[in-house]
């Protein structure tokens, strides 16, 4: 059994073998694998006794449930109005230059995927970004680069 299949079994045991567990199971897999491959979705469907189409239908609806491969770290920069006013464009530009990718892309070494997001709930301290599940409010170009450098060092 693959590592992913073991994880799926664990998650299903934890949350219960029913449709209501689908979101927590999908989220648990994305948390560790960063992406839901076709095989993974089929395994989840089998384990929860749902059709693969139902599982795919749900997964494809949610922005955070990626069905395309992503980097080990996912950067999400808020692009909504107040962060826009506080300078999110410069930060996006700086990180695009630093990582040599455009928004939506993943670096060659698979360390980072750069994305934008809608309001992250820190508008009074914009601009703000999420790296994986960690939040970084009140960033500027300098700070955002330092944060990503730190993640880069910590990622093997």
């Amino acid at each position, binding site marked *: 059994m693959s590592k992913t299949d073991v994880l799926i079994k664990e998650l299903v045991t934890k949350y219960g073998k029913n*449709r*209501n*567990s*689908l*979101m*927590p199971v*999908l*989220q648990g897999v994305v948390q560790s694998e960063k992406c839901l491959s076709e095989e993974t979705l089929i395994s989840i469907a089998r384990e929860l006794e*749902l059709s693969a189409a139902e599982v795919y*239908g*749900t997964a494809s*609806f*949610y*922005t*955070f*449930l990626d069905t395309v491969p992503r980097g080990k770290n996912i950067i999400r920069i808020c692009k*909504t*109005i*107040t962060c*826009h*006013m506080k300078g999110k464009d410069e930060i996006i530009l700086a990180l695009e230059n630093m990582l040599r990718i455009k928004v939506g892309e993943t670096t060659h070494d698979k360390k980072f995927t750069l994305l934008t*997001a*809608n*309001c*992250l*709930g*820190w*508008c*009074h*301290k*914009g601009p703000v970004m*999420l790296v994986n*599940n*960690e*939040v970084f409010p009140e960033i500027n170009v300098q700070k955002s680069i330092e944060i990503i450098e730190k993640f880069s060092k910590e990622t093997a």
Partner: protein
Amino acid sequence: MENKTLKKIDLIFAGYTSTKYKVLEKTFQKTPDEIINEVLDSGLKGRGGAGFPTGLKWKFTKNQESDVKYVVCNADEGEPGTFKDREILERVPRKVFSGMAICGRAIGAKEGYLYLRGEYTYLVPSLLKEIEIFEEYSKQYNYGFKIFIRLGSGAYICGEESALFESMEGKRGEPRNKPPYPTVSGYNSKPTVINNVETFATVQVICKIGAQEYKKLGTTDSRGSKLFSVSGDTPIAGIHELELGMPLQEFVDEFGDGDTKAVQVGGASGHCVPRKQFNQTVIGFEGIPTGGSMMVFNSSRSMYNVLHDYLEFFTEESCGQCTPCRVGCQQLLKGIEAVKRGERPPSYLEDLKRLAQTMKIAAKCGLGQSVANPFNSIIDNFREEIIY
């Protein structure tokens, strides 16, 4: 109309007492009907935006015959410009869980769910710790109420109550037809009370100080105080608890930077109020209701950019289930771009306003229905900025 002045209040974040969950002990000496009457009497209306009377929602759910009922706390907080629920969950989660437990007792539910937006995943460890404290307490007093956390995954529409239930049931976050309302058929098609984070926290406050005391604040239509998430061109961005019913002018005097041109009240799906209307606009259910988002714009801002941002937001976040909203959002966005580029005459804006009005009637849920709020209020008040 009652004239209120701007008044800062400190109830929601006021400190915990040393005894954990003390309010429950006191409240649970009452019967479910007495609890519901207290909440009804306080005049509390939902703090998530729509403003349905909380006590009434509880009463309807209590009156449903069902062996299983649920309490759901809506912590999906995705409305642009809103960040108060996160702060409540960070600083006073005990009040939220108290409110949920009180609701459970009142309606006869044994399970409560907190639906937390995926963007707030970092709150989970501290919330789980608080749930442990709650459950110890709950066991000790034999309350038999359990609280679980469910996470969202980056979809604004899941804040809409029926989409939220769909999501909890492992489905796409597509809003359901209404009726039936959640009080009759919510999570797992069982009678469900769904309230905003701040609503539950406020219930705790009401049970602590009493409805009589609470309703001294605010106006007949808008009892009490609420949290405002203030952002944009303001020197004091942040969360401020204010008495309801104040004129917007006083808010601007307090929070503006001296050059305020407009305030977007209620987030992207709310209304844009221009300077000339500050004086006659009341913040409350008798005027412009708000889930708390107050975005302040000064005269250096282009209202075209603001509207463009909002329309992009709706276009991305529309669940795509119904045509008026899916196609309407795209057409409004393309439409103002075309007018800006001069490819369409300014009179085209009238056609677009009619489209927004149609969406208000024909869209299936609050997302599509409310696009007309920002659209028409910005076009009407800042027409030149949209055209030139």
